């Protein structure tokens, strides 16, 4: 059995990415949408690691960038959850279809 190559990893990352996109567009629950966003972010992380390992094996930039993204994703999750709680308080629901007053 051979080692997984770059294309394998890119395939997984692409699959994760489109799963995230799909979830983000189809789910109405804000928490699920947040989880979809995390999927997209992780697919990007995976891309960074893969390219780092296979194209510039002696370097560390890709890894560090991944760490940054994880940290920012954590902060973003905190903000998103705060928004979700507020939406829940005002609408008694976290359905994104219910919160659409801000329109023309």
């Amino acid at each position, binding site marked *: 059995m051979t080692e997984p190559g770059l294309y394998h990893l890119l395939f997984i990352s692409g699959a994760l990415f489109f799963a995230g996109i799909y979830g983000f*567009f189809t789910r109405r629950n804000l928490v699920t949408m947040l989880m979809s966003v995390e999927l997209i972010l992780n697919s990007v992380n995976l891309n960074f690691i893969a390219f780092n390992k296979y194209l510039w094996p002696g370097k560390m930039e890709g890894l560090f960038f991944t760490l940054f993204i994880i940290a920012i994703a954590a902060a973003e999750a905190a903000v998103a959850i705060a928004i979700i709680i507020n939406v829940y308080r005002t609408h008694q629901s976290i359905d994104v279809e219910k919160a659409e007053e801000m*329109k*023309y």
Partner: protein
Amino acid sequence: MPNTTFIILILLLPLVSFVLLGLFGRKYIKAGSGIIATILLLATFLVSIYTACHYFFEYGKINGVYEKLVPVKYTWLAFSNGLAIDMGVLLDPISSMMLVVVSLVSLMVHIYSLVYMKGEERFSTYYAFLGLFTFSMLGLVVSVNIFQIYFFWELVGVSSFLLIGYYYDRPSAVAACKKAFIVTRFADAGFLIGILILSYYSGTLDFAALIEKLTAPGSTELGNALSASFLGLSALTWGMLLVFMGAAGKSAMFPLHIWLPDAMEGPTPVSALIHAATMVVAGVFLVARLFPVFALSAPEVLNVVAYIGAFSALFAAIIACAQTDIKRVLAYSTMSQIGYMMFALGVSKYGGEGGLGYTASMFHLFTHAMFKALLFLCAGAIIHFVHSNEMKDMGGLRKFLPVTHFTFLIACLAISGVPFFSGFFSKEEILTAALNHNIAIYWAGLATAGLTSFYMFRLYFNIFWGKEFRQHGETRREGGFAMKAPMILLAIGAALAGYIPFGKFISSDGKALAIPFELKHAIAPVALSFVGALIAAWLYLRQNNKPQKIAASLSALHQSAYRKFYIDEGYLFITQKIIFNIVGKTADWFDKNMVNGLVNLTASSTQAFSFATKKMQSGKVQQYAIYFLGGAILLAVLFVYVWK
């Protein structure tokens, strides 16, 4: 020339008066405003007299010729080399004379108004406006630059507007001040275009340089100005004609005279100052200032000046005979006398014996300022007493107003050209000059002289003789000392100003001019004056019905003269029927349909576009995300496949 920077005080003192009273008068100074303004004006007058005396008797004359001196000059706005707007003081015989005339009449009016305007609500505002007017008029006469004169020209226009509209609660005064402003403004548009033409061809705005460049035979500037032509007239002719249009507007020459009679809505001392003695002669002054250019390079325009002046003189004199409002009679008389000055300039030549008309015109300006200011001050005293402008409310006032009666009589004799009074000398010179040049104008002048005497004595007899005056209710008195003193001083001036040897001081080329006095030329006008006065006496000395009979037998002429020959109606017809209907309505249609249509089209298309696109902002977060994704994919495709 000694240090003469102090001359600038002549301009600064009235300006100080204006600023001080304008800012603080109504709140803090109040009744003291009159005294303050009068003291400042007295100082101005003394400096003016001092300056004029020094100019005429000490440093003005260089080798027997009065030179143009510029004691103060400041370049205010420089456009290019030679073309600059300067502010300064130009001393020459006519400006020195005008300094004296303006500051003297203004001082008299200041003193007179202390009583006449007492107790007015806007007393200090009135004095502030007088200060503004005096400042601008003095600035006008000492201008070194044609643009400077234009600035001050507009300033006197504004102060005239403000003072005519002084009683702004009367609709007639408001209409009159608007009319005066619009008519003179219309003429000033011509003046401005004239200035631009002249400065374009001569490349300068400075009076001395302008006159030199446009009169030197063979100079390139003059050649260019003469060879450029438009509608068959040369550029120089156009320029001078347009400058004369400005002068005619300010000096109420036919057909731009319609504002002057209405301007009598202002307080009477203002009429004396602005609409008799000083501002209305600004046009004459302007023609005199540019006289070398008129006489040497544009004699055809000078002919226009002569004919317009002569026609205005006769025309206004005829109207004056039929008017019943005493101030309007005086207004038409002013117009007629200014016509005299204009045609005197028009028939003059430059230099030597032929320049008699120029000297005569300035001489008449000087004497006219005295007696016409006096007539208006007398009219003010009469109106003050009778509380009416109409002749029919007066009569037999000689017992009640002895001082006014006496001074009015002197002014009447002076304006009618009765021998030994000032008007006689100046009118004599004008008629001699006209006789030497153009016989038609001479006859017009002669007829005017007779009519002048008739309408002045008609006024005199109607006011002071005729029917007996009855006092209604409270007994009224003649105005106080402050009203009488200026009248008496001006009466002395009106009687004696004729003995000044004007030819020695003022002539077209600055050299002394010996004025010939020929008895045979004096006979006709004097005889006509006496005839006019006698007819007036026959008709109006005792109350009778002869005037009505004569008016009835000449009813068409009388009626049209009474209605001022329908000039106002003519203007109204042209403006309201023709301009408003044809030009105005077309412009209105164009504005409503074309201009508004274009704007509305823009607005409605913007609206339609925004209605079509606003659905995009649906409030659905996921929809926005799809747009975002679409954009990102589009960019990705572009980056990968198109902008490689």
